[in-house]
Each structure stands twice: as structure tokens, then as C-alpha cells.
């Protein structure tokens, strides 16, 4: 992505902070903000300039259910449940067995469900969330590349690289939720590909997880898709299965 000239940057920062950018234009600025510190500083300055205007808004008491819902989200993490029994043949050592993975392909619901016990529990660092949905993203050669787990209730996604490193220089990996009924893919965020990563979901995305059919990684310009929809090749893809209940 080309660097912005100073005037364009100032104008984008002002219009973004004021809130007049919408759709792809707004998403594009949000992606630029991740990498462009000067733009971020200009947006911060505009936010501070405009914030006093909020003082003219008539306060309206929200219903108590809003706080109750917030309180549920911020509640102390539930204790991680004891690991379920792992079938003796399904040991983590299998991760290294190529034969085990050969022909694995797109995680079909049945196969992935059978693997959930293996995938979820032997994870070295127990996460403070309880996965409700799991997807294993595989590459073209059907090799598993990423383990994606979501806690729809907690509105968080954990992305754990199984192989591969970061995206090529000048590019970013972007994670998408594939949705039913021809709805466009929903961007979940950028994926580093080097270490396990937690991504917070907004409520819409968290709800979408429940009905999503799969997840995919596309290769995008650095900073992510400029349009809000996948623009680059889809590199890794997998079906989503319900992890428990």
C-alpha cells in the first residue's frame, strides 16, 4: 500500500474521526491505523478535538439489561474444565505424523469433531476461554496449517499456527468467517502466523460464529484487505464444527 501524502492523511484522519467515512473507506482507514503511526496520532488529536461535542447529547438512562450483559462478559474467567479423556491412540505425537494428516483435507464435520478432543485439550497454554467452535484450516496440499478456536459466548477467537511462519514480506494473512446463504465473508482480523493469538470479536461476529460454515485465510496487502472483502488468493480453509454441548 502506498504511503499517504500529508494532506490526504490529515483529511482522512479528520473525516474518519468525524465519522463520515463508511463501508470500505472506513475499513481501509482502520487497517491503515494499524501500521501508520502518524495517521493514528492525527486521528487521536481529532478525537480529542471533537469529544467535547458529546457533552451536548441528551443523556438517556439505558435499561439495566445492558449492564447485566456487560457484567456477564467481564465476569472472572470460568475455571478451565478438566481435560476430557483422550483416546489412547490419539496422542499429540500424531501432530508430527505426516501419514496421519495425509488426505485429511478440508475438515469435514465428522472428522473434525472426532479430533476435537485432541485439538482442544492438550494445548500447552490453557486459555481462559472455553471453545465453542473449532476449525482446522488446511493448505492446498491438505496439510493443516492453523487451528482456529472460538468462544462465541466470550466473543474471542484463538488462532494457533500449526506450521508455516508469517505472511510474505509486504503481505498480511487475514482471517475470514465463511457464512451461509451466500452472505459475504466476515473479516475477523489479521493473523501473524507465528504464535498463538487471541482476537476479540464484536457481538455481530460472535453471533456469526454460531452459524458460520467455515473459516479461511486470504493473502492480502499489508494491513489487510483494502475493500473489506477478500481480495487475494484464499490460502487456507476449513469447516467449522461445534466443539461441545
Amino acid at each position, binding site marked *: 500500500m502506498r504511503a499517504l501524502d500529508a494532506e490526504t492523511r490529515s*483529511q482522512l484522519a*479528520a*473525516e474518519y*474521526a*468525524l*465519522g*463520515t467515512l*463508511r*463501508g470500505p473507506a*472506513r475499513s481501509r482507514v482502520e487497517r491503515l491505523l494499524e501500521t501508520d503511526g502518524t495517521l493514528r496520532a492525527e486521528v*487521536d488529536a*481529532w*478525537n*480529542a*478535538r*471533537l*469529544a*467535547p*461535542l*458529546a*457533552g*451536548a*447529547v*441528551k*443523556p*438517556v*438512562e*439505558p*435499561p439495566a*439489561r*445492558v*449492564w447485566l*450483559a*456487560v457484567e456477564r*462478559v*467481564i465476569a472472572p474467567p470460568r475455571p478451565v474444565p478438566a481435560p476430557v479423556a483422550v483416546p489412547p491412540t490419539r496422542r499429540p505425537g500424531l501432530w508430527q505424523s505426516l501419514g496421519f494428516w495425509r488426505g485429511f483435507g478440508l475438515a469435514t464435520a465428522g472428522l473434525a469433531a472426532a479430533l476435537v478432543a485432541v485439538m482442544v485439550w492438550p494445548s500447552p497454554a490453557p486459555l481462559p476461554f472455553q471453545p465453542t467452535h473449532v476449525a482446522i484450516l488446511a493448505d492446498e496440499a491438505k496439510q493443516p496449517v492453523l487451528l482456529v478456536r472460538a468462544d462465541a459466548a466470550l*466473543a474471542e477467537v484463538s488462532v494457533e499456527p500449526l506450521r508455516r511462519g508469517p505472511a510474505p514480506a509486504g503481505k498480511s494473512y487475514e482471517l475470514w468467517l465463511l457464512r451461509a446463504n451466500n452472505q459475504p465473508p466476515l473479516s475477523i482480523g489479521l493473523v501473524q502466523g507465528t504464535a498463538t493469538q487471541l482476537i*476479540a470479536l*464484536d*457481538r*455481530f461476529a460472535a453471533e456469526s460464529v454460531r452459524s458460520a460454515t467455515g473459516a479461511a485465510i486470504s493473502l492480502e496487502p499489508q494491513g489487510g484487505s483494502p475493500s473489506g472483502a477478500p481480495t487475494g488468493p484464499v490460502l487456507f480453509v476449513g469447516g467449522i464444527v461445534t466443539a461441545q454441548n
Partner: protein
Amino acid sequence: MDGQTGAKGGADALGALLQATAGGDRQAFARLYDQTAPQLFGMALGILKRRDWAEEALQDAYTRIWRSAHRYDAAKGTGISWVVTIARNTALSTLMRRPRDEFAGNADDMAQMPSGDYDPMQRAMQLSDARQISGCLEELDGDQKRSILLIYYEGLTQKEVADRLSKPIGTVKSWVRRGLIRLKGCLDSASA
């Protein structure tokens, strides 16, 4: 950069609550909610025009505030400025997912709008705790001021402002652009 709303008693009490929230202090977060939720809800209602969407946006906003309180940097602005920014961004994201034509058939919700007898655009000119921005808005042309405030309070796009004011989109764009440049010049010279 001073003169923000909500920062009562000189010190930035909300900023302190945010810093405590960043440390996981749930009581501080609850106090922050009590002190700011009505204002943020009013703002979300202005942008989203529907109570159910505004409630959803408010819940999302406070979830974000809780999770990202550690990113609040007192050097970059007051606590209220940070919280208001998150609430507006959340409301705008909610709006982007819910096209405005879904408003049709929701007369009941529209009736609950806090507009009518209460015009934030009028009040913006009389903000006692933010004289600076009121003064700088006064320096703008009427059309520039109206366009900027419609975008801020109702979350309109420039196209929607153009439709509302029955003006060409290009005209509105240049009002907004020039208005913002003048506003920046005025606010920055006043705080220098």
C-alpha cells in the same frame, strides 16, 4: 486539549477510573459505566435511531472499553474523550452492518428518539464546559457547521447530508472539508 466534558473537578476522574479498569478493577469499571452510560446511550441513539441497536452498540462499547482499557493513554486525551470515541466508533460499526432502510416500519422506535424538543446541534453552541469548541463552531459558515454537526450527532454520510439539505454532494464535501480545516485551526490556536 483541555476543557473536555465529564472531567469534573479539574483532575481527570474518568481517566483514573480507566486506569483502574485496565488493572482489572471491576468496581472502578462499574463506576465508569454509571458515570458515562447515559451520555453514551444518548449518543448511540442519535446515530442509530433505534433503541435495540443502541443497546447492542452500548453493550459492545463497554465490552471494548473493558478489554482495551490498558490502551488508554492519558497523554493523548482525557478519559471521556477516549470513552466517547469508542462509543461512536462502535455505533458507526453497528450502523454499517444495519442499512438505514431497515428503519422503515419502526415508527415506534423512531418515536422514542431523543430529538424533537431537544436539539444537540443547538446545545453544541452553548456548551458551558467546552466553550472552546462552541466558539470555534461559531466561526464556521452556517452550512459548514450544520454539515459537520449532522455527521457527528446523527452519523450521516456526506451523501446523506446532501440529501437532507437538498444540496449537491460535491458542495457538502467541500463544506465538510473546509469546515474541518477551519475548526482545526481555531481549536489548535486556542489551546496553544
